[in-house]
């Protein structure tokens, strides 16, 4: 049985848009990132336009959106980057 919540790390502009570094949503029943992102948009509609351009990561790995979330995972959302 999965944990009740999924922690989603919102970085860069997403943190500004949500007002939170970490958002928590109900764990998606199908373990999919897409479902998790849809739930995030319901809570924070302001991120809807940015999400399609974000990469997803688990730990130190960027993962495709087809990745199946596993117990203990925390989803990290990486907006388009631009250091330097």
């Amino acid at each position, binding site marked *: 049985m999965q944990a009740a919540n999924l922690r989603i790390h919102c970085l860069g502009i997403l943190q500004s848009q949500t007002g939170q570094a970490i958002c928590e949503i109900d764990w998606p029943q199908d373990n999919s990132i897409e479902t998790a992102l849809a739930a995030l948009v319901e809570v924070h509609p302001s991120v809807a336009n940015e999400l399609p351009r974000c*990469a997803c990561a688990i730990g130190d790995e960027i993962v495709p959106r087809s990745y199946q979330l596993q117990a203990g995972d925390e989803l990290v959302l*990486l*907006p*388009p*980057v631009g250091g*330097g």
Partner: protein
Amino acid sequence: MTTLSNQPLDLDSLLAETEDDSAGALVVFSGTIRNHHDNKSVERLSYTAYEPIAKKAIAEIEQEVKDIFGVTQCRIIHRIGDLEIGDIAIHCVVRSAHRGEAFEAAKYAIDTTKSRVPIWKEEHYSDGTSVFREGTPLKAD
């Protein structure tokens, strides 16, 4: 090796770290905070990073630069946190036997760092507003 720092960057330590008697060329790119962007007056910048991937990505780029250009040394360090005008945000240090590949490698190092490392910069303007600069989407593969 330090690749991210929330303290002022120390070029001398990078130069010492990359000392190489076989290298006749040394190219340093340093990115500094300028006071304007798109006709707006910039007061400061805030850099944030996702460190687990940023550190790994910088290390990969350093190795990639050496592999592609055949340079003997490449080190990249990026600052995070709040930076003022004139502060240094990044150093890319490249050493190689000859200057041609050193210049090319240094350009590749900074360009690739900007497009592949999860670092974000928020510009704070004199009018009190702030904007996250448009960036490059990361790819999953």
